[in-house]
């Protein structure tokens, strides 16, 4: 008899839980498998999405182009697919809006061990006259050129860039000595160090602090029609950010389970070398700078008024809401200061 009562109670709890999930607004979220995109997994696993009142399904994509095509076809409601790709889509007419971010920094310059001393100086001038391998229009390409320009180096004249189709090909070219150094992103430089004995000469952030990488982008129409759901989504990511900042061990395990990447590599990139920051801030100024760097590099001649595709207010409302509940929390206060500086 007791067994039947327990079974009935469990069934009731399950049904109630299912009913709650069914009533929550749903968001289909796309991502690419990079360690710094881990806030989604933390928010999902710790129950922050449901806690904030949004039911999230996560979908992994093998490329930014596929992900954005799904977003354009309205098979997704929101997603994170680099910075270049959404900028290109928007400049070609897609009605997308940036509402947040997922990754800041993360690009590294790798070289062969015997070239490390020569290339690891504190000044970007060490790259003058050098041949650099890169994936065209990748964040590393755009930001490294931005950093060179900021440093007063005429990279079109003083640096030779060799384009490759994939970052794996860049690593191969560095290994063979076909280029002096290569621009890579996580986890490729860690894998290049581990598997091929190559060395990181610099993280680009050393020359260009807090540069924007992968942004959260959504349909403009959907964002405008239902900002409350997107606010709840961002509130969950803000809480996930706090978890990531304060619970390294558990975060590494969550990332590892979700991405099936070597746990040591994730720990090393995320907490030891801190090569990228998983931060949900929209970084409006960074997006606009990134666009300018693409144009300065000569990839796109036409300008486009991008600012109207950046919505920082939903993130700010989400942050304010989280702070209201925990006004003295140091992580949230730091996020507020960061927001004011970068948006």
């Amino acid at each position, binding site marked *: 008899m007791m067994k039947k009562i327990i079974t009935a109670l469990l069934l009731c709890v399950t049904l109630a839980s299912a009913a709650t999930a069914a009533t929550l607004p749903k968001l*289909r979220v796309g991502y690419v498998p990079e360690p710094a995109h881990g806030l989604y997994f933390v928010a999902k696993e710790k129950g922050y999405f449901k806690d904030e009142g949004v039911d999230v399904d996560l979908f*992994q994509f*093998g490329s930014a182009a*596929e992900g954005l095509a799904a977003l354009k076809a309205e098979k997704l409601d929101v997603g994170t697919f*680099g910075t*270049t*790709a959404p900028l290109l889509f928007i400049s070609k007419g897609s*009605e997308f809006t940036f509402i947040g971010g997922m990754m800041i920094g993360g690009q590294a310059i790798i070289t062969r061990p015997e070239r490390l001393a020569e290339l690891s100086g504190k000044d970007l001038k060490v790259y003058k006259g050098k041949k650099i391998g890169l994936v065209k229009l990748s964040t590393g390409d755009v930001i490294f050129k931005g950093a060179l320009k900021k440093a007063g180096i005429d990279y079109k004249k003083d640096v030779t860039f060799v384009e490759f189709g994939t970052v794996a090909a860049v690593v191969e070219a560095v290994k063979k000595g076909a280029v002096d150094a290569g621009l890579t992103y996580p986890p*490729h430089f860690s894998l290049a160090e581990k598997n091929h004995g190559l060395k990181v000469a610099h993280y680009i952030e050393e020359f260009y602090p807090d540069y924007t990488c992968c942004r959260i982008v959504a349909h403009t129409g959907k964002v405008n029609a239902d900002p409350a759901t997107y606010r709840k989504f961002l509130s969950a990511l803000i809480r996930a950010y706090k978890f990531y900042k304060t619970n390294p061990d558990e975060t590494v395990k969550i990332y590892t389970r979700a991405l099936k990447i070597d746990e040591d590599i994730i720990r090393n990139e995320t907490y030891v070398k801190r090569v990228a920051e998983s931060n949900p801030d929209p970084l409006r100024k960074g997006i606009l700078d990134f666009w300018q760097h693409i144009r300065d590099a000569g990839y*796109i001649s036409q300008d486009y008024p991008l600012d109207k595709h950046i919505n920082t207010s939903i993130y700010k409302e989400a942050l304010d809401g989280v702070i209201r509940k925990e006004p003295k929390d140091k992580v949230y206060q730091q996020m507020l200061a960061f927001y004011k500086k970068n948006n």
Partner: protein
Amino acid sequence: MMLIRRLLIFLTLGTLLCGTANAGQRSFQLRFGYLDDPGSAPVLLAAEHGYFKRERLSVTLVKFDSVDKGVAALAAGKIEAGAFPAGDVLRTIAGSGDLQIVAGGGTPMPGELLAELDRSAQSELRAREMVTVINSGKTAGTKETATRLVKALIRAHQQLQQHETKSLQSIKHHLSHQPLPGAYRFDPNPDYYRFAATWEDLGLQKPGMRRDHLNSHVYEEIYCDALDRALDEDPQNEVLQKLSSVAVCIPDCCPDAKKRKNKTSKGATP
């Protein structure tokens, strides 16, 4: 009995697996419309020099004496692809025609210095570029077929750049006027921004039309994939490298991106 059943299952599985393995090797048939215009040279070269065949495309060239007839045939599915002037193609697209631009083509060069300086003359010349279009609703195996088609055109472009005079000579029997070297600029890249400029010049964006209407009809990703394949085969080729240096393709982002490149979705993709 059990043995016969197992054998049948084995044979069925074997047939299925062979079928799957051969999908990438499948040959496609296409009717390709063109006009008597030197701007169509890459298409004619690809047919004449076997570049379509190398991509396992069986292409039948169909000559049209007017743009209207050619575009109408494409819209009706009487041909699967065609090379027609950009201006006419864009007007058809603006009028809700279901055409997709997959490659650029030949554009007449201005004959006089004044024409180079005149914006409207430049716009007029841009509108005469012989772009390659498909009717995706009617083309079997669309993405793979289109990628092979564009790769063949890239190969033809390569030949045109390396041996222009000889190449133009070899296709003169297709055209009533012998194309002169230097009279046309050839570019297989279906650059969205180039078409957007013509779209604007022709005043084709109407009130209420989606802002991405034109972009939904320009398949740059097919060109990027085709160029990628050509570069994989011939990485040191200078013509291909030059094309790659000016193409605006979305970069690979992910671990093992190359292996995943040709898949359209993942297991968890909606």
